[in-house]
């Protein structure tokens, strides 16, 4: 095996590890090191493009030949490769490089995609294209006057600068430039682009025009010429892409634009702005009008995002399919030819190449990755060839996903959330083969459903092992359905045999979407079980109620967890807000605010102080955030131990929960009072509040009282007993326990009343 071996020769692996974005040995020159395996999709796409490129030029004023092609395929199915292949093909056939452009839309949004496109096009190309319009107009004028026929020819062949001819003959430059402006206006169908592009022919404007085209704010010299807004929104950008098509397409030119991963950016843009869909439609129309070829690559779902009128504008759709065994074999030969100069299959065999095709589903990216690993393994092995076992090992490494435990946990969550009755790790009879990972029974069905997990099923032995287990299940419980979950991959042949044995496809774990697939598989299996004739209707109702209860309980747990999580987040953010507000209050040195410890400068300082004191008293006894942060910051054993000890102390967790709720009540009370203070008509320097205003304040205070009515505040005592986290272990903290308790009650007792009285007094005295 050339390319190196364990004898010290360095390995030359012909299967690039960078296969994610390109095929091995993909050279710059078409036809030299290109190892494209010609699939049906490639053949079709190439045919469509060739038809476009070879179409006879439209008659003057007639419709141009145009193509809008969608290339759809899963991740790694070779869309990007095909896109590049098409661009190179066009590049090889078109002598004028400005007629062939390609961009890979790795940017996250439409604007960045456009900017990348524009950078690839480059200022030189844009200027050159505008210059071509100028050259044509100068040539036309010279021809009309019968002057300088040589120059006319040279101008048409782009072999002489129009500016030079104009200068040499002292032609009426102003008139000629005005004609270019009108022409560009007509071509782009947009005054701004017509203006900007024609300015490229005048000295001093180039940078400003280019900056504007790339999305920057227009400079003053453009603003005063009517270009006042940047190309910023997604609709602007789609329009600008159309302008490029009009500029570089049309007029018997061929212009190819390939945008890879367009589905991603289109989806995001569409969600952000409803005008994007019509703008996209318009762009397709413009491309068609310009006689350009637009190739958009994306996931198969992309088509679902488009409405019917947009789809109508698509002239061709190419769907990427997996490589067949023969194509994988061909790929191996071509890749090695590109690397070593001669085509060969070794160290692979026809069988191992087919095996790779089967395990990867022909996905080119996976094929390349596997081939790369297999080539290396063969290189390092004594026999120097790829074996079936190597393929299986690589498949397990590259295509397997989680540990079995993780997959089992994922399945358990599905069963719990659906309220199904199950027994984990269950033996249906004596003997190891009768062990199932889950055994599910259903109230209205006889028998049950066994869930069996297995690693990749690649060999006859793998299949036999699974078969033995399914047979044991059915022997133990004749009325049983088996759901086989594969954590890995299934080779083609075992898959077919499993299908025969199970009566359904084995479920292959694939992180995303597994929960949905598993739930559907269990439901389908349950439906196949016969109904239970012994069951009385009431018993059935009871079982159903039990199931609902289990479901609810599970849901309740989940909601509780979620609520706890949200509370923690809210508390944390509220505290930060408090701190910021306190800083702001401290900074505010305006009249009546000096020294105010206000949590909210909009409330009179005395009132704000009531709230901030109450919150501070609660914080003093809890300090949970400080505790958790310190635990994470230091991760020191003593800190963690202290945190655990605290959480394990009697009544602590309950007290923390009460404190959290009380704190939330305080914050809401404060916010509502603030709103009242801002929106109600509170007279200044009056004797008393108007009755309706006073009533609404009273109502707020009563609401607060009602919220905290059933809070067992005495159960905050465990927090009072504990020293504050910030001074834990200190002797002084022990001594201040009574002070903490007194402060807490002083600040929280009759709070609503204090707030009301203080607020009314402050408001009527004209404060705040």
């Amino acid at each position, binding site marked *: 095996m050339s390319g190196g071996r364990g004898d010290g020769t360095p390995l030359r692996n012909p299967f690039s590890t960078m296969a994610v974005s390109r095929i091995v040995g993909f050279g710059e020159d078409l036809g030299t090191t290109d190892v494209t395996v010609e699939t049906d999709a490639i053949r079709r796409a190439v045919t469509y493009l060739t038809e476009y490129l070879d179409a006879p030029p439209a008659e003057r004023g007639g419709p141009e030949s145009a193509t809008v092609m969608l290339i759809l395929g899963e991740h790694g199915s070779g869309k990007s490769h095909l896109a590049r292949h098409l661009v190179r093909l066009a590049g090889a056939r078109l002598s004028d490089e400005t007629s062939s452009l390609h961009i890979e839309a790795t940017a996250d949004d439409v604007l960045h995609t456009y900017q990348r496109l524009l950078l690839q096009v480059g200022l030189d190309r844009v200027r050159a294209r505008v210059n071509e319009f100028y050259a044509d107009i100068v040539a036309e004028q010279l021809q009309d006057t019968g002057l300088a026929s040589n120059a006319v020819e040279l101008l048409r062949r782009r072999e002489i600068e129009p500016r030079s001819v104009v200068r040499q003959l002292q032609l009426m430059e102003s008139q000629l430039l005005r004609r270019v402006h009108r022409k560009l206006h007509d071509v782009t169908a947009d005054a701004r682009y017509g203006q900007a592009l024609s300015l490229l022919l005048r000295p001093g404007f180039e940078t400003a025009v280019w900056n504007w085209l790339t999305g920057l704010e227009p400079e003053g*010299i453009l603003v005063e010429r009517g270009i006042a807004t940047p190309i910023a929104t997604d609709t602007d950008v789609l329009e600008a892409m159309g302008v490029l098509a009009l500029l570089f397409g049309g007029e018997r030119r061929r212009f190819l634009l390939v945008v890879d991963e367009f589905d991603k950016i289109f989806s995001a843009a569409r969600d952000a702005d409803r005008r994007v869909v019509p703008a996209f439609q318009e762009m397709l129309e413009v491309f068609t009008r310009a006689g350009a070829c637009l190739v958009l690559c994306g996931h198969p779902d992309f088509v679902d995002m488009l409405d019917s009128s947009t789809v109508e504008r698509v002239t061709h759709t190419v769907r990427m399919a997996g490589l067949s065994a023969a194509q994988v074999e061909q790929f191996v030969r071509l890749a090695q030819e590109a690397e070593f100069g001669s085509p060969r299959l070794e160290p692979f065999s026809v069988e191992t190449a087919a095996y790779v095709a089967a395990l990867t589903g022909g996905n080119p990216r996976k094929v390349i990755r596997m081939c790369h690993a297999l080539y290396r393994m063969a290189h390092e092995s004594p026999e120097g060839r790829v074996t079936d076992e190597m393929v299986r090992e690589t498949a397990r490494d590259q295509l397997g996903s989680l540990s079995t435990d993780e997959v089992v946990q994922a399945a358990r969550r599905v069963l719990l959330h659906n309220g199904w009755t199950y027994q984990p790790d269950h033996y249906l009879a004596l003997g190891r083969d009768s062990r199932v990972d889950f055994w599910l029974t259903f109230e209205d069905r006889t028998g049950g459903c066994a869930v069996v997990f297995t690693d990749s099923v690649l060999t006859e032995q793998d299949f036999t092992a699974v078969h033995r287990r399914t047979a044991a299940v059915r022997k133990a419980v004749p009325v049983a359905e088996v759901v086989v979950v594969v954590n890995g991959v299934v080779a083609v042949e075992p898959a077919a045999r499993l299908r025969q044995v199970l009566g359904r496809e084995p479920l292959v774990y694939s992180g995303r979407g597994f929960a949905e697939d598993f739930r559907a598989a269990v439901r389908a299996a349950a439906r196949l079980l016969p109904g239970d004739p012994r069951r009385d209707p009431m018993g059935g109702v009871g079982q159903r109620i039990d199931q609902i209860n289990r479901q609810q309980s599970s849901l309740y747990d989940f909601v509780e967890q979620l609520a706890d999580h949200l509370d923690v987040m809210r508390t944390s953010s509220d505290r930060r807000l408090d701190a910021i507000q306190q800083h702001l209050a401290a900074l505010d040195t305006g009249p009546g605010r000096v020294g105010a410890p206000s949590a909210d400068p909009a409330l009179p300082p005395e009132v704000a102080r009531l709230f901030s004191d109450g919150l501070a008293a609660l914080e003093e006894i809890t300090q949970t955030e400080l505790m958790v942060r310190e635990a994470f910051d230091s991760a020191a054993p003593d800190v963690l131990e202290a945190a655990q000890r605290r959480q394990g102390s009697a009544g602590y967790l309950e007290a923390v929960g009460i404190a959290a709720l009380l704190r939330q009540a305080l914050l809401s009370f404060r916010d509502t009072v603030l709103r009242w203070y801002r929106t109600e008509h509170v007279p200044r320097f009056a004797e008393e509040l108007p009755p309706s205003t006073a009533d609404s304040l009273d109502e707020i205070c009563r609401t607060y009282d009602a919220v905290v009515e059933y809070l067992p505040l005495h159960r905050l005592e465990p927090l009072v007993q504990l020293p504050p986290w910030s001074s834990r272990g200190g002797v002084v903290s022990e001594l201040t326990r009574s002070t903490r308790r007194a402060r807490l009650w002083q600040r929280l007792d009759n709070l609503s009343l204090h707030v009301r009285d203080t607020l009314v007094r402050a408001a009527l005295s004209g404060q705040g």
Partner: protein
Amino acid sequence: MTLEPVNPFAVPHLHGPVQPLRPFAHDHDGLYVRVDDGEQQYLSFQRQMGDLRALLEIGRTVLAIGESGCGKTALLHRCAAWVIAELGGRGVTAKVVDATRRFLVAREMPSAERLVAVCDHLYDLMRQDGLIRPDADAEFKENRREPYRVYQNLGGFMPDDHVLILLLPSPKELWEEVVQYAGFAQGRVLFLMESDMLADEDVARIRRDVAHFTEPVVLQVGPLVAGDVERFVTDRLGRRGNTARFPRLSDEAIAAAGRKFKTVAQLQLALHSTYQSRMDRATGYENDAWVTAEEILEDSERRSVKGSGTS
């Protein structure tokens, strides 16, 4: 006596064949020929300027428009020369300050920025020409980047018996800039501007937006019309008469030139270049020799591809 060979289309003191005439600097006044409507526009200018009292009292702005090569600059120069001569007769010194050259740069600047830059540059130009009164120098210098202050006081910065004729950079398509300068005009200041990008509708906008008493004098030149070529050629060849040696132009050649060339600049360049080529050949440059239409067109052909690799 052997006559010296001359190019009858060469203009003394100019650096190139299509440099505009500068009668305020050289003896070019007699070289103006009635082409391109220039003569009528010149007379129109004289008529509108009248006895120049308005210029002395409130200042004036002149805008020349027309396509490139139609003689706008030469016309403005002629107008400037007339003002100088007229005022000179009354003991008033009018001086031309050319602020156009500095702004033929690679970077275009916004109108407001250019306004400041011109004003800033004006201080240096006027100082070089001794147009600033010593007692006003400090104030001008201090405010040189404040166009509103400078133009408002410009008359005061100059000696009482001086008039400034300021050749401004072209506003190009920005008609608002003309309005701006027209508003700046003060007694003893004449602004001269030209543009090959302003059209009739822009002039209408300018007239709409300026105060009546500051309305600019608008001069419009155009392409060559019937008879222009013959007049031009006759003038240039006849000017030398038999005092120099140069070939003659046939009627056919004049007619052909009339059909091919649209502007006076184009015509001047073509004939100057054709004669120069013939002169460089050393033979055939006699008074009884003829320059043909073909020769003129061949010369244009040669010039048009100059620098293309086929010339």
